[in-house]
């Protein structure tokens, strides 16, 4: 009898208040990049163009969801002693699949992302979520947790890439759509104007500065995040 009650209690709606927090928390309060400061390496390296950031985010989201759901399904089967190795194998397999698919269908982007797709394996966000969440929770909540963290990573990446591409290149370039210009051609010094692209924006250090600014803005708006000291 008592077990039945437990069952009913556990099969709460996938979109209960608790589960919704799994989705929304990583976007702000526990954002993997700005609050937990995980996965910084890729955030610095591939945010020169929005297009790259989109593909990278999609890749991370896929690996994140796949890894979280698979580990959560296997959570009662995985031997404790080798759980980290098992997680690593699952992540690595998913990353290799992503890499192969990119190489086959999006060769140009795959070339630009180069090693960073492979480095998703070492992205601490993914390993961290598998270890901290998926191993102890059902597939449903794990799925939501993966989406939440994946999107939390994605929006920071996109925000940084957005700033860097506007100031670094003056335009967005998307294959198929072409260029989306933000700065009119006539403004550029080459055409007799006053404006010049900021080349520093294209270099990795500016990504760090932009992430820093995002963290600053976020903390000033969300005072919960400020450590008391």
């Amino acid at each position, binding site marked *: 009898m008592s077990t039945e009650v437990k069952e009913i209690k556990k099969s709460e709606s996938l979109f209960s208040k608790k589960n919704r927090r799994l989705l929304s928390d990583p976007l702000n309060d526990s954002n993997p990049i700005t609050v937990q400061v995980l996965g910084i390496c890729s955030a610095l390296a591939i945010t020169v163009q929005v297009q790259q950031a989109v593909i990278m985010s999609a890749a991370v989201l896929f690996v994140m969801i796949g890894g979280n759901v698979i580990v959560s399904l296997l959570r009662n089967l995985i*031997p*404790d002693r080798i759980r980290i190795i098992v997680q690593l194998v699952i992540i690595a397999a998913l990353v290799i699949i992503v890499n192969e698919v990119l190489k086959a269908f999006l*060769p*140009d982007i795959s070339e630009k992302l180069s090693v960073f797709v492979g480095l998703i394996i070492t992205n601490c966000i993914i390993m961290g979520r598998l270890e901290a969440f998926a191993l102890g929770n059902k597939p449903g909540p794990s799925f939501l947790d993966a989406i939440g963290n994946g999107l939390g990573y994605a929006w920071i990446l996109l925000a940084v890439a957005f700033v860097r591409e506007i100031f670094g290149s003056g335009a967005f370039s998307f294959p198929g759509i072409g260029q989306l210009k933000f700065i009119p051609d006539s403004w550029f010094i080459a055409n007799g104007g006053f404006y010049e692209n900021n080349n520093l924006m294209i270099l990795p250090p500016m990504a760090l500065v932009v992430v820093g600014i995002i963290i600053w803005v976020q903390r000033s708006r969300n005072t919960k995040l400020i450590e008391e000291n």
Partner: protein
Amino acid sequence: MAVNKNSNGYTFLFSTLMVVIVGTALAYTSLSLKPLQKANEADKKMVNILGAIGVTASRDNAKEEFSKYVTERISVTFAGKEVNKTSGEIDATDKTDPFNINVKKDYRGIIGKIVKSTKKDPELQESKLMKADVAYPLYVCVKNDSTFYVAPVVGTGLWGPIWGYVALMDDAETFYGATFDHKTETPGLGAEIREVFFTEKFAGKTLNNGADVVFEVKKSGSVTDEHSVDGITGGTITSKGVGEMLNRTLPVYVKYLEQTSNQKAQL
């Protein structure tokens, strides 16, 4: 039946199963996507070859542009003897098609090892390269009614492989253009070999055919003549690598081109 999850037997069973399943899945993905990846690589190769003669192509129009400009594909031996000559459609499964020769693989497997082991002895190197069973592909291009020869070159930079395509004029002596690329050279230093400011220096320079060193990439800031270019500041070893691969590979094609022009003259 309760299974002890912490027993050695269970752990071994779990890991064995996991490896088998993951291995199968990855092998399947890799095999089923291979043809598409191969096609992408071939497109990229065409874009690079066309880049050496100053034709800008993209992956989308690589095939058409390639068949428009490249008239013949030839493979030659180290001694400059012709092995194969084809034109027309490229068949990705035809191993004898010079286009399908993987120069990077040949370098990694055979040539690179010879070069490394005989660094200090050029004569030994030459005799070893002569014996090695490697074919060198050459692309004959026609642009604006003049003929160019595009030759792939592969070598070693500071951290890893470097490669490129060099276009020679039909005198088998003068550079028309060149493109270089690398895998892991230092950004801002050695990696600059792929930039236009470096590759444009090659146009118009000539090979010192017959000499031991046919072409030099000098230490940056040196005085250059018509048989040498200025290297990259801070990328000395990468620049040397570029010089080495040009010196080793281009004479092969020069030998071939001189032989064919002699034959033509005799006829």
